[in-house]
């Protein structure tokens, strides 16, 4: 049995995220091509990495059919021009697909079975709406195992409001508004753009180039948010304003064993400390990151107070608020989602996990005083996923507690 190898996150990139719609910027772009752009763009940033050193490619997608079918990691590797000797596979844990790609391949590195890997995800929700053509087992409903509503993510968010009445619609809207403003501020400061891989896009008006996220609404106001429809319930609390939009996009990241990275001259942007996945009642799937984070903290021997930066996926405001409330963190705590989140930027399901990591890695470089960071997200059918990372720029990095 090989010794445990430390796993470092070298780099992460993504395509700009597009609105999932017939009018969205990726309406005429294939999902697998988005993943290919992300992987090609990632590798172009590391021209000295011998491509045949890549041991595996895992690309996640929630709906693995059509242009998201055919074991994506392998097809994307071939299409991105990787040597035929590099294998690949597809992975699925719904919204936590890319996160699971990172933890799965990272585990392979830790076990000494991989040196360098690529992990990412893609979701073209315009072409593959969540649950399309799914055939849920009727037992879920007939045996009352899971409520039919549990498959509708908006309804599960409404149910979180039921469960935690003090987390009001007003708080949700305010959190969403802040996300929009923080994202725009980050754009204005040029924080987001360096990790975006431009994508040529075809349209009826000719070729264009996607260079920014399409779904941002920096002009949002509380007054405007209050007028939005509540599509999941009459007079409900969840709106298009305080939920992440349907999104098309892809992400890719490069992970390596610590020593291999050093040998190959690959910089370590983060070290994987621990991770955890947990199941919860599917009807309130948004609460998932709470137990998954507790697991990750336990395995790392850390407490929540030691986490200096949080990248939490904003599937819904209420779901992030539930997490913050549980851990006693203020709605507007400056450690949380420094550059906004999925409400502003978008949430292409299986791709999002690596976006969280990419942003956290950038923030680590800007905040050497922070030692640990958390990436966490809720997952459909009642799950949460969390990964804790250590900042190599911190003075005590790898030096024990």
């Amino acid at each position, binding site marked *: 049995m090989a010794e445990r190898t430390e796993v470092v996150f070298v780099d992460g990139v993504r395509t700009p995220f597009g609105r999932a719609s017939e009018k969205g910027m990726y309406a005429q772009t294939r999902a697998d091509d988005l993943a290919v*752009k992300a992987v090609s763009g990632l590798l172009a940033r590391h021209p000295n990495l011998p491509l045949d050193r890549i041991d595996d490619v895992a690309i996640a997608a929630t709906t693995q059919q059509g242009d998201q079918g055919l074991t994506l990691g392998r097809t994307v590797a071939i299409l991105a021009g990787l040597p035929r000797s590099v294998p690949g596979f597809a992975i699925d844990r719904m919204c936590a697909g890319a996160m699971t790609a990172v933890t799965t391949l990272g585990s392979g590195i830790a076990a000494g079975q991989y040196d360098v890997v690529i992990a990412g995800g893609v979701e073209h929700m315009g072409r593959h709406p969540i649950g399309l053509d799914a055939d849920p087992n009727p037992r879920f409903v007939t045996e009352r195992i899971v409520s039919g509503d549990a498959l509708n993510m908006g309804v599960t968010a409404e149910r979180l409001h039921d469960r935690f009445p003090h987390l009001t619609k007003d708080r949700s809207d305010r959190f969403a508004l802040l996300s929009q403003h923080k994202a725009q501020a980050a754009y204005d400061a040029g924080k987001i753009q360096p990790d975006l891989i431009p994508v040529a896009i075809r349209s009826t008006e*000719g*070729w264009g180039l996607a260079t920014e996220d399409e779904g941002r609404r920096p002009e949002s106001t509380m007054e405007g948010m209050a007028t939005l429809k509540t599509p999941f319930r009459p007079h409900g609390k969840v709106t298009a304003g305080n939920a992440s939009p349907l999104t098309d996009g892809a992400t890719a990241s490069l992970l390596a064993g610590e020593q291999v990275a050093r040998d190959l001259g690959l910089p370590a942007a983060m070290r994987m400390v621990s991770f955890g996945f947990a199941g919860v009642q599917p009807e309130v799937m948004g609460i998932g990151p709470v137990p998954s984070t507790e697991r990750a903290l336990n395995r790392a021997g850390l407490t929540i107070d030691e986490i200096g930066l949080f990248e939490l996926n904003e599937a819904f405001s209420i779901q992030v608020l539930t997490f913050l409330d549980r851990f006693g963190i203020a709605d507007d705590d400056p450690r949380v989602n420094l550059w906004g989140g999925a409400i502003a930027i978008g949430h292409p399901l299986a791709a999002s996990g690596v976006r969280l990591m990419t942003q956290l890695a950038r923030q680590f470089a800007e905040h050497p005083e922070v030692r640990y960071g958390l990436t966490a997200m809720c997952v459909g059918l009642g799950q949460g996923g969390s990964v804790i990372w250590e900042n190599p720029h911190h003075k005590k990095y790898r030096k024990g507690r």
Partner: protein
Amino acid sequence: MTDYSMIDFSDLEAASADEVVTHSYVRDIRLGSGRTLALVTLDNGRDHTRPSTLGPRGLLELRATLTRLAERAAAGEIAAVAVTGKPFFLAAGADLSNISALGSHASAVKIAQLGHAALGMFGKLGVPSFCFVNGLALGGGLEIALNCDYRTLDESAAALALPEVFIGLIPGWGGATLLPRLVGIENALKIIVENPLKQNRTLRTADAVSLGVVDVSFPARNFLEDSLAWADRVLGGMKVARPHVPGAIEKLAKWDAAIAIARSRLEAKLGPTPQSPYRALDLLKAAKKGSIEDGFAREDQALADLISGDQFHASMYAFNLVQKRAKKPVGVPDKSLARKITKVGVVGAGLMASQLALLFVRRLQVPVVITDLDQARIEKALTNIRADVEALFTKGRIDRDEANRLSALISGTTDKSAFADCDWVIEAVFEDLTVKQQVFAELEPLLSETAVIATNTSSLSVADMGAVLAHPERLVGFHFFNPVAVMPLLEIARTPHTDDATVATAFQVAAALKKNAVLTADRPGFVVNRLLAKVMGEAARALDEGTPVKVVEHALDPIGLPMGPLELIDLVGWAVAGHVQDTLTNAFPDRFYQSENLHRLAATGEPVVEHDKHGKVIGLTKAGAAAIQVSGAGADAATILRRVEDGLADEIAIMLNEGVVAAIEDIDLCLILGAGWPFQAGGVSAYLDRVGASERVNGATFHNPPIRGAGN
């Protein structure tokens, strides 16, 4: 200098109402540096089966678009302009349907000028222009790129070429002037003159880079993104190396010499008749000095002259035959009647049989069994075929697995019962009716009821051969041309007995072999040999009359045939030519000329003609001169030419009456594909019409109206 902005093109626009317009869409791109680049996309709105082409309306739209962009550039709104195409295509060139319909020299000048008016804008934007060659770029398509300041190329682009000379034109939208100044005279000659004359060869992407046609290439997976990033770097001051741009020394020492060499090669290869290659040479020579604008004006004139001349129209006729009619043969039964071929038998193990076996196994990828009476001949044939397969592997045409597969599919035996499960058996035994009948009589009882029997005979009657068959309806003529692997034509000869299923199968097999097949009646010499016999007979007659070899060889120069008649006879072999001549003379004694001198020359068994360094026949060898008997003072070139013209016009009219083929177009197609007769002659019918031969002999032209330019 022509001020293109002052020319009124509204008449061209009006004449092009049915054009499939290639639109010019514009989107602003924010580059990484923050600069704005206006990206023009050329797109005709059709799918990949209809490449974008450039007609008057599309060009006017492009000009208007670029004029607006020049204004935006002047206002400081954009830092650069780039142009690219819809997926797989930049543009496949000018919209030829409208060009060939132009009515006068004056409007022909305008189509040339409109190209310059639109494409020339890429050099007058006030900001750098880029062409991102994302796919096929032919003719005017590639000239878009040449008119831009910089060029990138998608490594998966299907082809780049300036094929104008191939169809009787010159690259007249900037190509003939800009290309030599970009890549040097020798590379320009290769692209503009040599490649079009080598079966219209195109540039592969690696060649386009190494010759300097484009500045850089990028992989398809990220082509547009990489091109935009590259353009951004160029705008930021990155130097782009242009190692092929001719310097003073090249212009002084190399330019005119290269033109002169090319000219003498052309004269040797093509003779003086085809206009477009020489016109291209003139333009390339003149491109050495002077302004770009003067070069464009010369292009306008040359293009207009050619468009309004006869040769271009004949070339377009020929081009359409090859591109369209050849792919949809006329008179063929429905392909649903075709039988599936799962195993092929080849009777014989000679050179022709081996060539056929290789072709069938390579293209059909089914077992091919060859038979012969002699086991040693079979072994030799198998060895040769497998060596040929190995050679394909060595050349990189097929991979190891494929080579192993093909070699394993080939087998040979003296036992003809191996044909029992063949669906297709082709004979390539000695060209003698009795021999072939014996083979068929022996073969038929061994075959399945539905197996097709094909014969590669070139001159015997297929029906006579089939007289011994119990099922003559399954017999079809399947006449290849030498060398079998290279020549694209197959004459498929149907006898009165041949059934539809057999003919349909033969055409399916021809398509699988990647040959262009033409349906002919079972008449002596089918199409190509019958008409070549006419030409060779007249050459022999002239020789018999004491005409000097040089006069005979050059008498037909005005038609522009690929080789002189004696050179042709020498190539096919004097014995074969004598045999073909005998066959046709026996069939049509009053119309074909039989010369004993052919047999006498064949009997020498040694070279009978002298060749120059280009392979042209320039005289008889001593052995040749000693072998022949001549009487008379010889015919002059004009007489020989007239005999050939009239003879061809006469024979073709008779063939059409006999129903040898469905239409005159099939005669021309056969001559073009089977004998390499020139596009500019339209095969031959356009030529015979324009020189008056058809009217002289038949009282009418083959085409009505004749295929002629507006200048006549």
